């Protein structure tokens, strides 16, 4: 209702705007204090569990249960705890960490490249079956990942791929949402006349994609890469279904393995809290640093 009333003003020309716009109509000092206070309270909610796990990982097992959870114990045993996390079971934690890095890093990199190539092809070429292909892939965006994991396991075990690196890596290479974003972005930004000019210069189609296409698509590629990186790093169901060898576990599966042993052996509390602390550090830092790119890429995709 209101949207239709305001829509005519959203002309392409209106989109160009100066940096740091004043987005408020009417604002007072008291509202600044109230809004900021509310934001602080919400920030506490998001940060306290992380603060707790940091405090907990500085304590010995006995202190963990006898001292206040929100404050440090007299004995500071963070380094001993982390040392035990890293050295337990011949450094299995490092192995899990490396596995996660391989699954997420390699998976996200290749998935981004494949999504870029596919999205570019669907945006910049007219060919028979284009709409059918795009429609099928778009349907894939809505298929829950966990719905395909079970049948994929049956399929991979028949092919002898279950319980290998490939069983987790191969499904991670496909990002229908990434292709969707790349197609939107390529339609809006890759200049067809630039492609035609390159063709006249005698450049091959694949070469045009690799030189012009990838370069222009870079902002969208960063977004797709980050989405996929976090998606694979956070994935639990797929590796749980596929892997039985703990040497192949990603960090999520490994830490859950440790947690399931705390009932019998309380020392696993320290291992788990220390391991959780170590595992959330890299991606939390990545989130904080990279959220700028993330937002930028998403805006381009949403607006165009």
């Amino acid at each position, binding site marked *: 209702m209101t949207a239709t009333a305001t829509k005519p003003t959203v002309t392409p020309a209106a989109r160009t705007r100066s940096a740091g716009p004043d987005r408020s109509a009417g604002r007072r000092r008291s509202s*600044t204090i109230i809004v900021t206070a509310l934001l602080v309270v919400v920030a506490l909610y998001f940060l306290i569990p992380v603060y707790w796990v940091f405090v907990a990982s500085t304590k010995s097992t006995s202190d963990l249960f006898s001292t206040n959870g929100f404050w440090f114990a007299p004995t500071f045993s963070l380094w001993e705890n982390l040392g035990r996390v890293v050295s337990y079971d011949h450094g299995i934690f490092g192995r899990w960490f490396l596995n996660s890095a391989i699954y997420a890093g390699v998976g996200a990199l290749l998935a981004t490249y*494949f999504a870029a190539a596919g999205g570019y092809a669907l945006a910049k070429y007219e*060919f028979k079956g284009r709409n059918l292909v795009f429609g099928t892939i778009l349907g894939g965006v809505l298929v829950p990942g966990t719905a395909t994991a079970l049948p994929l396991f049956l399929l991979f075990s028949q092919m002898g791929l279950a319980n290998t690196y490939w069983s987790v890596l191969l499904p991670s290479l496909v990002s229908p949402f990434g292709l969707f974003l790349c197609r939107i972005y390529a339609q809006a930004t890759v200049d067809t006349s630039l492609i035609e000019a390159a063709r006249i210069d005698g450049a091959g189609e694949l070469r045009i994609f690799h030189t012009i296409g990838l370069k222009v698509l870079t902002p969208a590629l960063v977004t797709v890469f980050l989405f996929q990186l976090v998606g694979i790093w956070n994935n639990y169901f797929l590796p749980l279904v596929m892997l039985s060898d703990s040497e192949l576990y990603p960090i*999520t599966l490994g830490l859950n393995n440790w947690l399931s042993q705390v009932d019998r052996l309380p020392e696993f509390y320290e291992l788990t809290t220390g391991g959780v602390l170590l595992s959330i550090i890299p991606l939390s830092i990545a989130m*904080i640093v990279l959220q700028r790119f993330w937002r930028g890429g998403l805006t381009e995709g949403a607006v165009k």
Partner: protein
Amino acid sequence: MTTTRVAPGAERQAQTPRRGKRTGAAGRAPWLLLAPFLALFALTFLLPIVVAILSSFTKVTRNGLFGEAGVTSEFAGFGNYAQAMADGSFVASIGRMLLFGIVQVPVMIVLCTVLALMLESASAKWPGFFRAAYFMPYGVPGVIATILWSFLYVPGLSPLFDAAKLVGLTPDFLGANSVLWSIANIVTWSYTGYNMLIIVAQLKAIPVELYEAAKVDGASTWRVARSIQLPLIRPALMLTTVFSIIGTLQLFAEAQVLKTVAPAIDSQYTPNLSAYTTAFAYNDYNVAAAQSVIIAVAAFALSFAFLALTNRKSS
């Protein structure tokens, strides 16, 4: 598989170019570019879906005491579906997720919208810091987030109980009635910041001229939020809601990990946990496939119902 199916089409394309400048190479190029994606898409999406649907209509019988006389499979019609729907625990798990979704999804969407509007209002100080703080949990895998919160839910370990005692409360986060909302808290903690970022992105796309016009008209902050911002971020709200609905029906890691400390969570607490248990504890892959199909269809149906409902309202 895909490439063989694709090749004849590409050749025909090359023989009958619609435009004079289309050469054979240009006709093949899109399929070449699409090939790696399509091959992997066929392997990890299409094929498993076909396998799931086929095996959900198949009944496997093991002959002999341990299946040593071979297995026979036959068409089972809707037998597996009937068996899945006759399983009270599985149906209950779907009902549980509906209840979960009806409460948790609106709470999360309202929370992330309010946060996005507050961060984008000129009244907020240090928006960059808050945005990063709210988004940070998205980088914590669901399993790790659940381990983190499970420590805070366990009496004796958690400082929350000491804090609650001060105000005379004795909470039970892992009881039969409360554990569902403890899971809802974990999900809200994990995804609010992510959804907020999607909405912030759309808010940033609103042209400044609209704000300026509102200012000239003397509109209040509330009025700007209600008449300009909320209508224009509708697409982002719909996107986040649909993804949240799909995510709710898929809920698995949180329940499965919390199960180790919460006896109230059984092995069929969520639909996905139920399918997982059916497949790997009972080794009944065919019924598990039927359950997977039911979950996917339910997610589709709910998403479309939501979209249809909101579209009808707006027109």
